[in-house]
């Protein structure tokens, strides 16, 4: 049979368990009976969803295992979340506890609901991308191992959403996370002139540099990089394989905090850089896990109930965040890019 073009994704309607079909659009409210367990009460039925951690980079056997469990307890239905967790959809309350028991027995991690740290949205890293400044899955594993106590409980001041991107393309959601972990380069691209001559459109390459650091070098049929103007974004490398930018000695991780996307209470905001660089120290990135834990502990100790990290910092002021955290401040943290101006303090009301 010939393949069909443009048939689109499978119809979600075939993927919904009966309790959802019965209550579709008629949910009344929800409760969180225990960490990782959501109880949604509809007009004609109750649905329990059990949220289980996933490393996201999984084998097909992992998925088959999930299917087995879903067949046993969920009439063969499950879903994934926008944060790559798994949710087992239990229509029959009687099956809830047995499911939880099985999950516990098989070492699945149940949690991520309410005032917790859920899975980290992340990317490919050294596993499958060509531009990473760090790994993705490894850093996530190290960080989540360290913070596990906040995944399977709901004792934080508020939800904590983390994102990781392995390069400045920021395929994770690091630009708008409570804590963003971003792989960064720190040295300019190295030009492979031969490679460049072979396959690169020079005008496109020149145009790709956001700071105008690249100029044509007609004599050499190549380009020249003005190192003083380069901020190592790697956009040129995306345009041309001849502009290699990875640098094992100098690549590493920056930490941004305080972003959010929900409109609850306060407007969506971008994350802001508080640590410009931490070294890549695989396999467990101790500098990164420690730095993140310190920020989270500080937040826990100081925030008011219900305050997400950014809301807390905005209330006390970023200058106060730096004095409380002891994180060093430097001109590297001051924006000097296109929208820098809105970050400048145009007033005298600040804390010493």
């Amino acid at each position, binding site marked *: 049979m010939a393949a069909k073009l443009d048939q689109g994704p499978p119809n979600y309607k075939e993927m919904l368990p009966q309790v959802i079909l019965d209550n579709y659009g008629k949910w009344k409210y929800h409760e969180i009976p225990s960490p990782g367990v959501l109880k949604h009460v509809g007009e004609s039925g109750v649905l329990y969803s059990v949220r289980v951690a996933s490393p996201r980079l999984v084998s097909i056997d992992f998925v088959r295992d999930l*299917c087995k469990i879903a067949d046993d307890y969920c009439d063969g239905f499950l879903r994934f979340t926008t944060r790559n967790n798994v949710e087992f959809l239990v229509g029959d309350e009687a099956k809830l506890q047995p499911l939880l028991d099985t999950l516990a027995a098989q070492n699945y991690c149940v949690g991520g609901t309410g005032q917790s740290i859920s899975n980290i949205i992340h990317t490919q890293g050294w596993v499958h991308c060509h531009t990473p400044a760090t790994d993705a899955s490894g850093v996530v*594993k190290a960080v989540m191992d360290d913070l596990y106590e906040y995944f399977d409980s709901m004792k934080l001041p508020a939800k904590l959403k983390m994102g990781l991107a392995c390069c400045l393309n920021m395929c994770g959601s690091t630009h708008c996370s409570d804590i963003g972990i971003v792989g960064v380069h720190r040295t300019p691209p190295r030009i492979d002139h031969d490679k460049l001559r072979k396959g690169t459109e020079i005008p496109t390459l020149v145009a790709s540099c956001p700071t105008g650091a690249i100029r044509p070098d007609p004599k050499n049929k190549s380009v020249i990089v003005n190192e003083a103007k380069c901020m190592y974004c790697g956009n040129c490398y995306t345009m041309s394989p001849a502009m290699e930018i990875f640098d094992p000695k100098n690549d590493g991780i920056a930490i941004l905090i305080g972003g959010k996307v929900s*409109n609850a209470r306060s407007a969506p905001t971008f994350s802001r850089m508080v640590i410009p660089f931490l070294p890549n120290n695989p*396999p467990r990135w101790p500098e990164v896990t420690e730095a993140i834990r310190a920020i989270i502990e500080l937040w826990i100790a100081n925030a008011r109930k219900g305050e997400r990290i950014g809301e807390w910092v905005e209330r006390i002021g970023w200058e106060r965040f730096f004095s409380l955290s002891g994180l060093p401040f430097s001109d590297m943290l001051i924006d000097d890019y296109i929208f820098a101006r809105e970050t400048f303090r145009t007033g005298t009301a600040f804390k010493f």
Partner: protein
Amino acid sequence: MTEKKTPLLDELEKGKWPSFVTEMKRAAVKSEAASELLDVLERSYAERRGHWKHGGIVGVRGYGGGVIGRYVDEPKTYPHIAEFHTIRINQPSGFFYNTKTLRTICDLWEKHGSGLTNMHGSTGDIVLLGCTTEHIQPIFDDYSEAGFDLGGSGSCLRTTNCCVGPGRCEHACYDTLEACYNITNEFMDELHRPMWPYKSKIKFSGCANDCTGAIARADISVIGTWRDSIRIDQDAVKEYAAEKFPIQSQVCDKCPTKCLTYNKETQELSVVAEDCTRCLHCINMMPKAIQPGEDKGATILIGGKSTIVQSAFMSSVVVPFIKMDPENDFAEFKDLVGRVWEWWDENGKTRERIGETIFRLGMGKFLREAEIPAVPQQVFRPRANPYVFWAQDELDRSGTALDGSKL
């Protein structure tokens, strides 16, 4: 398959969080490619650098995207991952699955690829991670027959994505699952055949909690809302009060517009509906007592994206309220995005997302040319400069001597 030496990666099998290394090892048992991937990754851990090269052009007949070419930098050392491409498969709305479908995905992938997958990619696709060039077309053919289609890559509409919405959430203000499904099907050509200045994403969130992160991660962010008043069930309020839930401090005091008042005496809540900005906070706090209004729809915001090239943009309001009507085949929305994309296609520069184009050319020009009415909801505040463009043909310029002569 030989036993691997991966001392660094093995460290990541320890600890509570599920381990991707364990998963890679499981795949490696069945796939040489997955096995070599472990080797390369171990090497990356030792050397602190990646080993993947730029993607070449690979693809499926009749499609312009959906596959990311990927090659290892030392193909001789790692012959099984010399070609190790990614296939993006368009996921079902809301990431819902029955196990039959999921197993089909697994079986086909076992047949053709590394057995490693991302459930899901951060745009939303089912990401099949690692196959050779010659398998690409057969993979497509098989998945297609099983009812799947490719997701997006390149300068096209990317795979759309939505929150669980009415499938499980009491807050959903429109049918995100159906909208995502219906609208994706409408724009198959835009999704599969790159034709624009750059990529464009749509994410559907059922309410202002924005559980897909649409506002920051999609060029077109469709966020559910309502036009009338939140609905308060005073009996339920009393129940919260009886349970000593701190209504004043956790709900009213945090209402951004202070339009929600709690009367401790009567144990009732009251709202000044016209002042409520539908931020969802009170509803989140007291889902049993407070509900969205009845006149539901969505706010359309445009321009979201991450940091490369011109900085991260949040989407901003373009149409404050639109009905998202499945009966009507989402006609209003489709018509709107059609105009929006057309404008961007005509005006955008290569590798310029629509938010950047609007910023470069001006929101006013965009609104005028895409025929969208200007309303104060589109801005936090009006302009601080007086540099208004005036339509010259609407002015009486008869007094203006164009040759510089005295008037």
